[in-house]
């Protein structure tokens, strides 16, 4: 518990540090949301100055940071200039969409990588090992942008899958099953891209962790007692190999909000990715800070979850 309390305190410090840096760097970026409005001859400089004063942009950075922190505690997370609404309400809808996409992709990646990695590790040097390592090497060298564009091209040519967006036109008029089916078909391209982008790294980690543990003397000892291969893999080797995998799982959870931004932009998924791109282009300061901070919160929570799981699962960590 002491270890977890220390990790929690560490996480809170990290969050404060990240919020300061995030706010500072976003603020230091050249230009502001009102620069474009200034170019409009129909809007007087006095009006622009009044708008800047209204949103508090005429205040020094530390004052604005404190005001932003106050708004976070009020549950607003700042104010979007472009949408003229609190950032939180914007983020909640987009984050839900992103979580749907990354949650499904992360679940599938783990469900594929763990059994496949164990199987490959159990046949070192065999055809499955060579095929697995070869195909992951190819996938590692292909950027996810190329994968997404490839799938989109295929979908456009074959008309087999919907291209772009999360739902079809007239979604609200569909029945329950049709809605589900429509959502699932829209998920296929971005999820497949995320799976193929995330699978190689995870598969290689599972394989190498398991292969290393399979050489441990306690595995030899168990084999000498007549322990079956399946039991050896799942009861003996997997818990011992889980340590690096749990850390990786923490990263997966941490990346739930930030891991799919590019894929969302390319496939038109209405998640945080397009919102962040749009907000960055228009210098919508608090939206950018809000997206960055929500990703940071997830990253810290993911690491905390991994730490808690390590303490619960691994007696070697408890001993330390």
């Amino acid at each position, binding site marked *: 518990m002491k270890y977890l309390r220390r990790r929690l305190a560490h996480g809170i410090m990290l969050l404060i540090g990240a919020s300061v840096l995030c706010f500072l760097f976003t603020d230091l970026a050249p230009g502001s949301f009102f620069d474009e409005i200034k170019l409009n001859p129909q809007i007087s400089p006095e009006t622009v100055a009044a708008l800047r004063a209204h949103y508090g942009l005429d205040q020094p950075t530390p004052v604005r940071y404190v005001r932003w922190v106050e708004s976070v505690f009020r549950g607003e997370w700042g104010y979007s200039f472009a949408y003229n609404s609190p950032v939180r309400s914007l983020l909640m809808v987009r984050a839900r969409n992103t979580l749907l996409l990354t949650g499904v992709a992360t679940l599938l990646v783990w469900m594929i990588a763990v059994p496949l990695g164990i199987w490959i590790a159990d046949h070192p040097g065999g055809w499955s090992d060579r095929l697995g390592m070869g195909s992951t090497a190819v996938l590692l060298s292909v950027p996810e942008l190329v994968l997404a564009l490839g799938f989109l091209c295929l979908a456009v040519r074959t008309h087999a899958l919907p291209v772009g967006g999360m739902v079809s036109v007239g979604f609200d008029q569909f029945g329950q099953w049709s809605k589900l089916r429509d959502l699932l078909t829209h998920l296929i391209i971005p999820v497949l891209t995320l799976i193929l982008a995330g699978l190689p790294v995870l598969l290689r980690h599972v394989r190498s962790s398991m292969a290393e543990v399979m050489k441990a003397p*306690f595995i030899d000892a168990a084999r*000498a007692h007549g322990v079956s291969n399946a039991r050896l893999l799942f009861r003996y080797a997997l818990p011992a190999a889980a340590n690096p995998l749990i850390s990786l799982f923490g990263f997966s959870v941490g990346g739930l909000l930030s891991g799919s931004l590019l894929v969302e932009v390319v496939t038109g998924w209405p998640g945080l990715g397009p919102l962040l791109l749009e907000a960055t282009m228009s210098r919508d300061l608090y939206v950018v800070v809000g997206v960055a901070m929500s990703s940071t919160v997830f990253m810290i929570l993911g690491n905390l979850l991994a730490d808690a799981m390590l303490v619960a699962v691994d007696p070697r960590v408890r001993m330390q």
Partner: protein
Amino acid sequence: MTAEQATKRAARPALVRVKGLHKRYVQRRAFSRSRFVVDALRNVDLELQPECLTALVGASGSGKSTLASCLAMLEKPDGGEIWFEGREISRCDARELIWLRPRIQMVFQDSAGALNPFFSAAQIVAEPLEVQRRESGRTLHQRACELMEEVGLSADWADRSPLEFSGGQRQRLAIARALALQPTLLILDESLSGLDLVTQAQILNLLADIRVTHSLTYLLITHDLSLVGQMADYIAVMHQGSIVEHGTRQRVFGSPQQAHTRKLLAATQDLESAFRAAQAEART
């Protein structure tokens, strides 16, 4: 063991008879298609007399552990025969190994690595009994505690993690686990390496005791000839994958036939005298 006892035991058929054993490892060079071959065992012949302690000595990389792994059926030899209790076992399939596994047990060098850190001490000792379906439920835990006490570990420590034990205690735990299936052959692969002299002596005493109570045959693998000087009945010397000398302790120590054995003995004597000099220096 007296000369008379040795003669009596030698008259009985050997428990293990190894004939022309061969094991080769083929490894690929990094970033190259070329391969290189390591002959870990070359035409090895060896006999282990029942209820005797045979010490297998040799330098690192001489093939001792590979021979032990082949005898424990952890590795398949590429050629030759292994006869155990009058049965050829080198080509046993998985079903036949079920019969064989409990008969041959092994205690490994790395006591920390050889015990599953995710199990408690009792679970570790009970594991072979559970796997071989010898005991279950409450009797399983009870039997594990009995075995722990037999090797000098308190049953109160049954729920402790192996990480909480000292090196010597962990080795005792490994011995208790090996004894669980009542084997006839116990292979001790450098099991005393890394332990201090007092702990080594305690473990050797324990091994001597359980050898009598369990009628065990030992194959003690070591590179330390001074360690086996007091205890071994037979000594086999390995060099570059082959057994270059094999005989009774008295014969090998008294009149070594091979140059490599003489070298090993000289090195041991040098080490012993250096150790004594260091001890004397420490006292002054």
